[in-house]
């Protein structure tokens, strides 16, 4: 456990440095003059001109060399200072807090709903087998074959326009959360219900599962005592793997539903060349990613104390 945490901390440090440096290099190699980009975002399309760009350049000291800028950034980072947004002038940390809150809300809601869908469906499929299994198999494959935005678009057409049950886009009320979370949840559940099903089927067929019944335990007792935990091991590990698709899904869903989360914010910051925000957002994503993976590891270890999951 200790070794694992230490390893994770080390990973975190490399990730912070690596992600920061990578985004820095990428942003520096973006075509076009940063001052113009920032001016466009600050003053709006009607009011951006070379005069505005010159002002921005002067104010933000954009003429300093790449190396100096990198050095400044590293020093600031060591003091946990993410800097100020070039566009709004607000502290990056505030902007990210605001975005992260929304993203986490969406992610948690999506994950929760996906679990609520995937676990019963997966267990049911493993338990009852065909034709139910084949039906859900087909359904899952269909949903998996659709990009997440298509799923979102279909939901909007159906739930927001046809039936007018939920708002199309925006945020602020619980009703706004429903469609984005459902979109995320379904795209996640389409894969995870199969993992639950496979794991359950594997467990149901395992020698120890049979042996438990041979020992005299009822089917329900066997499931409760030997099923749940053993099924959970690969499923929880899989949720760790699914974090990636979750975050990717969130980027698309946030854009589609105008959800002011970190993915959306990152995409916008990229267009605006708001380097501090990009670095901050990428860093937070990286850190979050490592942290969540650690959490999953610990959860796995708690469920299955036999060994540490491979990173």
């Amino acid at each position, binding site marked *: 456990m200790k070794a694992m945490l230490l390893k994770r901390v080390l990973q975190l440090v490399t990730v912070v440095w690596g992600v920061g440096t990578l985004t820095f290099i990428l942003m520096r190699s973006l075509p076009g003059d940063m001052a113009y980009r920032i001016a466009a975002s600050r003053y709006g399309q009607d009011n951006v001109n070379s005069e505005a760009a010159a002002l921005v350049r002067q104010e933000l000291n954009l003429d300093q060399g790449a190396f100096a800028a990198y050095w400044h950034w590293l020093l600031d980072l060591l003091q946990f200072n993410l800097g100020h947004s070039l566009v709004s002038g607000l502290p990056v940390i505030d902007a990210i807090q605001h975005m992260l809150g929304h993203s986490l809300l969406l992610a948690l809601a999506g994950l929760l709903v996906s679990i609520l869908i995937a676990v019963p469906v997966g267990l049911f499929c493993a338990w009852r087998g065909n034709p139910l299994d084949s039906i859900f198999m087909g359904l899952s494959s269909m949903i998996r*074959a659709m990009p997440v935005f298509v799923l979102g678009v279909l939901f909007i057409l159906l739930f927001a326009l046809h039936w007018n049950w939920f708002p199309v886009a925006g945020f602020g009320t619980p009703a706004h959360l429903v469609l984005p979370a459902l979109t995320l949840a379904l795209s996640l559940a389409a894969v995870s219900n199969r993992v639950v099903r496979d794991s359950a089927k594997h467990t149901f067929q395992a020698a120890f599962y049979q042996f438990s019944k041979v020992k005299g335990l009822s089917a329900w007792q066997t499931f409760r005592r030997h099923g749940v935990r053993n099924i959970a091991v690969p499923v929880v590990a899989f949720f760790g793997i699914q974090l990636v698709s979750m975050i990717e899904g969130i980027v*698309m869903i946030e854009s589609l539903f105008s959800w002011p989360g970190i993915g959306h914010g990152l995409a916008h910051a990229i267009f605006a060349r708001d380097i501090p925000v990009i670095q901050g957002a*990428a860093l937070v994503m990286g850190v979050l990613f490592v942290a969540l993976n650690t959490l999953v590891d610990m959860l796995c270890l708690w469920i299955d104390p036999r060994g540490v999951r491979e990173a």
Partner: protein
Amino acid sequence: MKFTMTGSQWVGLGVLLSLLIFAVLGMMFSPFSISQQDLNAVLDSPSAVHWLGTDHFGRSMLTRMAHAVGLSFALGVLCVVTSSLLGTALGVWAVWGGKKVDHILGVMVNILLALPGLVVVLLFAAIVPGSFWILYLAISLVQWVEYFRVVRAITQNVIHSPARQSSQMMGFGHWYQFKRHIWPAIVPSVFTLAAFGGANAILTMASLGFVYVGIQPPLAELGLMTVELFPFYSDAPWLLAQPLVVIALMVFGFHLLAGKRV
């Protein structure tokens, strides 16, 4: 090594091949170009002239779909080839090249893994917007990691297997050991990853098109076409349906071809 495919894999291959044939024939024989507009015939339903109808510029949907499918395939195949070669080579090297190599590659992979793939691709796509080659580079860069991890894990097992040890003791060289032991062990996984990789590359390109960072007009790209045709979903639903169905079919085909889930 004999490669046997299951029924559903054949179906997947069939779906993909039909789409590919559609793309090739469409690109070769269509009398229209992808940008040829006819503002007098916009949003036409399928007819004898325009088999799949026309879009909001009066462009032939058949031609555009064929090009879009071709583009998606090109990207998918290129990404798969590049990332699988790179990932496999580095994965084997990480095991064989000693602790130092393994460690350095491990750090690289950890950094790349700490950012979700789509975000990395977004960052890259922002550098040269609308460039096919940047998309290809970025997607390949993201995807090789997956091959690397799997190949490294399998190779590690193979390296310690009695079979490889025995070959080494009998005096066989590295190339032989790779050819006879490592490659046959990794090829099924690499194949599965490749099929999923193809699907993911196509999905990524469509997703970028959807957030306007991908391929730019007038090139036909499935994600972009989805956005372009979305406003007409009630006037001309058959138009919007085309890119959506084709994306789903391509991804579905690749998933079937993969044969099993990751």
